[in-house]
């Protein structure tokens, strides 16, 4: 790829965005102002790019550039400011001083929708898995960790909130710590925000990874979308709901491992399986508190299918098996078996819970969110021990 071709490609993408965005959304760009800004930027670029190249801040592979220079700057460098000035004013015109909803409101609601309290639950498995394999913080780890910290959660919970709107209206538990009721006017802008914030990161991860990473990313992305989009709505298919939900948290770790080129030996698979069962248990028990509102709204879940008592017991069994599985993995993984105990103790009082009293399990669910931070702390200690033992 030569610099000329590369620049033309990106410039074409920017031009397409700059001309199609205003047409699609009826935004009015002041093209005369774009022309003035472009003229100024070209002059500034020629002057300062020449200075920067003269100071040897960066250089270009001679065989890959056209060889046409303006001052010291290769002519291709002008594509950067031109792309910026042709695309960004269109985006700005679309976003600035909007009413119903304003961009500020959209961003605030997007952040609430993405569940900041849960951001770490996906970024940590990714970063830990990758760091323990590569043993260094490289750019891919940083890019991936940023992706699994924010855009991934925005996709997962944002898509969910858009398509859950109707059932959310009937559920008083949403709108605070554990969710957000999203006004319909925000639905389309939020889906755009999800798309535009996820695609660039996913492209980078796909380009950086091999075939196994592609499989992991595909499964992960499918689980995020299929959980709540109309037509699939795996969250309303009992058992699949718990499997998909657990995939949301385990798949970032698997993506991290595949990007790092990890070898999947028996010990690693046992640990991942334990993590997966833990995630299923968490989802299933979380669904118990919603049995009554879900049934009223005609929504199926693992808990509406099996009832409060069976689902609670299933969760207890899954946590127990998850803990037992780690006992068979190499040291220090068996230490993690102890982490299952507080989960079992937390939920055990609802061993005989009936459907009518299922909303009371919200008390255990609230403690569960706190417990996750505690177990995250202990898992981190175990991972540090693993790091030291295998150093």
């Amino acid at each position: 790829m030569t610099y000329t071709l590369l620049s033309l490609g990106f410039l074409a993408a920017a031009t397409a965005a700059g001309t199609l965005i205003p047409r699609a959304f009826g935004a009015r760009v002041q093209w005369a102002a774009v022309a003035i800004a472009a003229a100024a930027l070209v002059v500034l670029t020629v002057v300062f790019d020449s200075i920067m190249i003269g100071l040897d801040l960066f250089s270009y592979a001679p065989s890959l550039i056209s060889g046409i220079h303006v001052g010291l700057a290769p002519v291709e460098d002008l594509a950067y400011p031109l792309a910026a000035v042709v695309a960004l004013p269109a985006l700005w015109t679309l976003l600035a001083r909007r009413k119903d909803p304003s961009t500020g409101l959209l961003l605030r609601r997007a952040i609430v929708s993405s569940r900041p309290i849960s951001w770490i639950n996906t970024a940590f498995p990714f970063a830990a898995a990758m760091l323990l394999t590569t043993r260094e913080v490289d750019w891919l780890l940083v890019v991936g960790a940023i992706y699994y910290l924010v855009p991934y959660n925005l996709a997962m919970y944002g898509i969910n909130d858009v398509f859950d709107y109707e059932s959310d209206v009937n559920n008083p538990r949403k709108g605070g710590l554990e969710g957000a009721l999203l006004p319909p006017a925000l639905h389309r802008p939020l889906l755009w925000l999800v798309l535009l914030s996820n695609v660039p990161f996913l492209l980078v991860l796909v380009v950086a990874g091999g075939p196994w990473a592609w499989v992991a990313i595909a499964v992960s992305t499918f689980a995020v979308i299929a959980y709540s989009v109309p037509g699939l709505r795996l969250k309303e298919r009992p058992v699949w709901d718990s499997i998909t939900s657990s995939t949301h948290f385990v798949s970032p770790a698997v993506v991290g491992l595949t990007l790092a080129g990890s070898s999947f030996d028996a010990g690693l698979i046992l640990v991942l399986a334990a993590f997966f069962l833990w995630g299923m248990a968490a989802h299933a028990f979380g669904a118990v508190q919603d049995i009554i509102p879900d049934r009223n709204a005609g929504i199926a879940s693992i808990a509406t299918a099996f009832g409060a008592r069976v689902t609670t017991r299933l969760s207890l069994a899954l946590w127990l098996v998850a803990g037992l599985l780690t006992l068979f993995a190499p040291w220090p993984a068996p230490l993690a078996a102890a982490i299952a105990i507080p989960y079992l103790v937390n939920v055990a009082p609802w061993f005989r819970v009936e459907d009518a009293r299922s909303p009371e399990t919200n008390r255990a669910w609230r403690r569960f969110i706190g417990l996750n931070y505690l177990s995250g702390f202990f898992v981190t200690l175990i991972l540090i021990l693993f790091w030291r033992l295998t150093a």
Partner: protein
Amino acid sequence: MTGLIYLACLLAGIGCMLLLDWRFRLFFWADAAAATLVTLAGTSFLLLWDAAGILSGIFLRGASSIATGIVLAPELPLEEPVFLVFLVLCTMVLYTASARLLQNSKRRRTP
């Protein structure tokens, strides 16, 4: 200390753009949320461009003594994303200021 010169210049440039922005309420001071999204989108797009150039072997880091020498990734110095943020800010300040001037002159001609 000379290693900080380039980064300091970029940060000073960003500071100057923000001063213009603040004085004339052009970008962040016109709509902070929209400006944040535009800056994020612009910077990410240009970073992807850089990454593609680096992967194609086009861009090479220089050996200048005024750069920190800290690299975020192979051939990607710490200063590059800061420069891209500056470029986006400069572009948007120029555009919003030009649009404002054009509007004002139009208003003056048609009272």
